């Protein structure tokens, strides 16, 4: 294995191992199977969003509307489920709803070439306030009994909620590496003009990536909602920052063209573990946000330090 190619991912992994080590010494009960299982389940939907966000950032764009999209999709999931449709159809429709929301981004950013941060900022506000307006904050309640855990029981439901994102993760890792489409994403992110001259249609790639992001949001919303028996309409606030932070901590360059999904996985794990780890360490919850910020900055600084060390060696 070529370590050089993975050095950014490795620095994130080291940070994660240090965190695990500290928690392991101070509070060994953290490593109970039950706790690890809960961590997996709680972060599985975030992983889906982070996969999509990795693609978006790889092509040099950003999507800060995912939290609001997530809320719209969650409420839609609940309302569709109440019509009593079978679960597989529900899965399909949720991906479709996500796809439509992603396509709105995709058209504006890919085809009309508007800056993604502005478009998604506009939609972040618009989707959220639109949802507030229509639901007036009401929760979706009285869901059919087969909604929670998809009606296959807690254990199998949990396996599905963790399993689907992991399978999707594997598929995306493979496709990014081996499919033309995957390579096209890196090409567009590195230099859209060069990619165009090489015969890639950048606007199609950009459109496609945002559509995929949307579909993943729809899926994530459904998997998240299925852990409960009601759906709050204020869900997903701040989720976009969580996803972006996880991707960046995982070593993907915000300027596009460089980064790996394996890093994103580490990023999700790292940021998803901090909150729980702090509780286990008995650190007051007041400091959680500050520590989260420090870890993002530390990941950046650590990266530079590693690079400098390497230069010295040479």
């Amino acid at each position, binding site marked *: 294995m070529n370590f050089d190619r993975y050095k950014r991912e490795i620095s994130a992994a080291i940070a994660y191992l240090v965190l695990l080590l500290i928690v392991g010494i101070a509070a060994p009960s953290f490593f109970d199977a039950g706790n690890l299982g809960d961590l997996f389940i709680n972060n599985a939907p975030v992983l889906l969003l982070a996969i999509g966000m990795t693609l978006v950032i790889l092509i040099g764009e950003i999507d800060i509307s995912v939290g609001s999209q997530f809320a719209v999709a969650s409420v839609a999931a609940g309302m569709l489920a109440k019509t009593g449709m079978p679960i597989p159809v529900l899965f399909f429709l949720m991906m479709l709803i996500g796809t439509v929301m992603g396509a709105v981004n995709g058209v504006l950013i890919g085809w009309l070439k508007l800056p993604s941060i502005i478009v998604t900022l506009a939609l972040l506000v618009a989707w959220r*306030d639109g949802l507030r307006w229509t639901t007036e904050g009401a929760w979706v309640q009285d869901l059919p009994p087969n909604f929670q855990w998809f009606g296959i029981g807690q254990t199998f439901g949990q396996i599905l909620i963790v399993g689907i994102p992991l399978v999707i993760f594997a598929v995306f890792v493979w496709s990014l590496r081996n499919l033309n489409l995957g390579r096209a994403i890196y090409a567009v992110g590195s230099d859209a003009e060069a990619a165009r001259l090489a015969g890639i249609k950048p606007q199609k790639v950009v459109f496609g990536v945002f559509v995929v992001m949307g579909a993943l949001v729809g899926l994530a919303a459904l998997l998240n909602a299925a*852990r409960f028996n009601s759906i709050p309409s*204020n869900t997903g606030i701040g989720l976009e920052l969580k996803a972006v932070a996880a991707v*960046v901590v995982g070593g993907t360059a915000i300027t596009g063209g460089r980064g790996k999904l394996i890093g994103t996985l580490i990023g999700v794990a790292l940021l998803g573990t901090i909150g*729980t780890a702090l509780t286990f360490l008995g650190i007051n919850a*007041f400091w959680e946000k500050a520590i989260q910020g420090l870890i993002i900055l530390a990941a950046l600084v650590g990266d530079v330090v590693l690079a400098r060390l390497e230069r010295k060696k040479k």
Partner: protein
Amino acid sequence: MEAIRQTNLQTEQPLFAKLFPNNEWVLLIVLSVEIILFGFTGNNFLTAGNGFEITRLAVEIGLLALVMTLIIITGGIDLSVGSMMGLSAVVMGALWRDAHLPMPLAILLTLLVGVLGGTLNALIITKLRFPPLIVTLGTFSLFRGMAEGLTRGIENYSGFSQEFLFLGQGYIFGLIPAQLLILIVAIFGIYWILQRTAYGRSLYAIGFSQEGARHAGIKVRRSLNIVYILSGLMSSLAAVIYVAHLGQAKSDAGTGYELMAITAVVLGGASIFGGRGTIPGTVLGLFAIVILQNGLRLSGQPAELAGILTGVLLVATILIDRISRQAAAKPKREFLEEEEVRNSQVGILSAVILLAAIIVAGSNWMLVRSIRESNSGSSSPSSSAQNQTANAPANGKKSVIAMMPKAKGDPYFISCKKGADEAAKEVGAELLWDGPTDLDPAKQNEVVEAWITRGVDTIAVSVENKEAISTVLKKAKDKGIKVVTWDADANKDARDLFINQATPQGIGETLMDEAARVLGNKGEFAIVTASLSAANQNEWIKYIKARLAEKYPDIKLVAIQPSDGDRDRAFSETQNILKVYPNVKLVMGIAAPAVPGVAEAVKQSGKTDVKVTGLSLPNMCKPYIKEGIIDHIVLWDTGNLGYLTVFVSNALANGTLKKGDKQIQAGKLKNIEIVEDEVRLGKPFVFNKENVDNFDF
């Protein structure tokens, strides 16, 4: 340097094009449309008083947006400004109250904090060369986290001197808000820096091309350092004004302001890629947003429309900008045609998007409406209540009652609104229901200001923060508007009556006593609260702790974890509590959305010996109460609270209720007792397995 000045100023152009090089005139049209439209639909929109009031609300965001313009011109961004406001606010409060420093010195040191924070951003961005987006995303968490950590989320500094408060609440010549002067100075100052100094021109050069700027002899790093430090400084200044405006300093100051500032800048024609942007544009962008919010409020339109319209406006302005630029650029680049998107295509695409958005929104709306109707099910208030309108007292004009919840989207307040609507129909009053979408004391002030301008008969507020709102409520009273508080009180002299459903002490003690009963007077328990800075919850926790110390020596409170009013967060926090403190036998959720999350976590853990209690709504918790996971929840009849509030408000407005009255005949609630200046709804109610089916809210 002269060369740069030449290329950017394009000196040959007429004044109009010079002032608005980026199609900012579009905003002038938008602004005129807004003003004309709201002039017709809004009450008292077109008055000098309202004009100045609008500017008062724009000052803090305006200050942030001005420096944000500079940053965006260099191709950067600063997400940490809102968090820096939070940190600065609590530092100032602590220096003044706890370190007993004189106010001017405290302000000076606070500004220094801003400079330090800005320096931190600048160093990481220019020395380590990381993209500003990521760096400031990190400090966005860091600064807010420090503010929360330093104050444990609870501290709320207030009681500032009148001289200091003048800065944010006073009027010069009885009309011009004091802080407006600061904004005007800042506008001209930054405009001058940007347009008339070599430094300002260098920012454009950097935005076009850092490398090119370097070759032209510009010290790129130094220029960037200055702009980020300036941003930190301006955030602190905005925080000082914010504190003076609200009369309180808390760690949540300025939450979300970074997005508002960025929106104003981009709306004002600045390119997010750098090299383009003007101060006049930003100012126009700022007022386009602020007037939209204010105008919608005065026209009685839902506040959420502001968000949707702002989003549409953002996309529309950059789209128009793009189309006009393409039209201008076309003749020169004909040979690049294959990549070009034709205007007609743009038009069709936008039409399709708009259509899709309308269809999605429309169908969503229909679906939700239909489901909400079927949810409320058995009771059919709409039809029967409408008939009753005819029975309304025909004593001349309809009174206008403006009622504000702490947060519009909160299920608790939605259930209050049901009762309020019912009462409004019964007494034949017009009910305005508006408030912040999330807990936000600054927004509450804004809404009350708008109501004063609009002219209403009674204002009824559920107060998020006493100190913040009391001045503006007093102002309403001075203008002859009746002021009522409900759910949570303001300072006594700021209102006529308080509709008291239960005192914080009563709530805290009931929660603790009931929990102790479930625990059998011994064992460990934990609390899941709303956000760590939630004023109400902190008040309850205070009384819970006091009761605990006084009556229950064998019970131990082991943890207080935040949920931010998010069900999912409450869920995972409870999972952690159950694992870290295995002896916990009871988890108490003290925010309505938290309790179902807590209950679900306990249920999934399989720990049958752990009970859940707390303060929440019966409908939300019904399944868990029936399963025996939630032992009980404590609350009052929220619908009746809303009902009573409207009844009392109406009686005050038409003079049937006067000071010193000992009781009021409140419709279906019959005789309600008034003690001094408090209307008592009754005692908190305990909902459990036996009685929960009798309630639907």
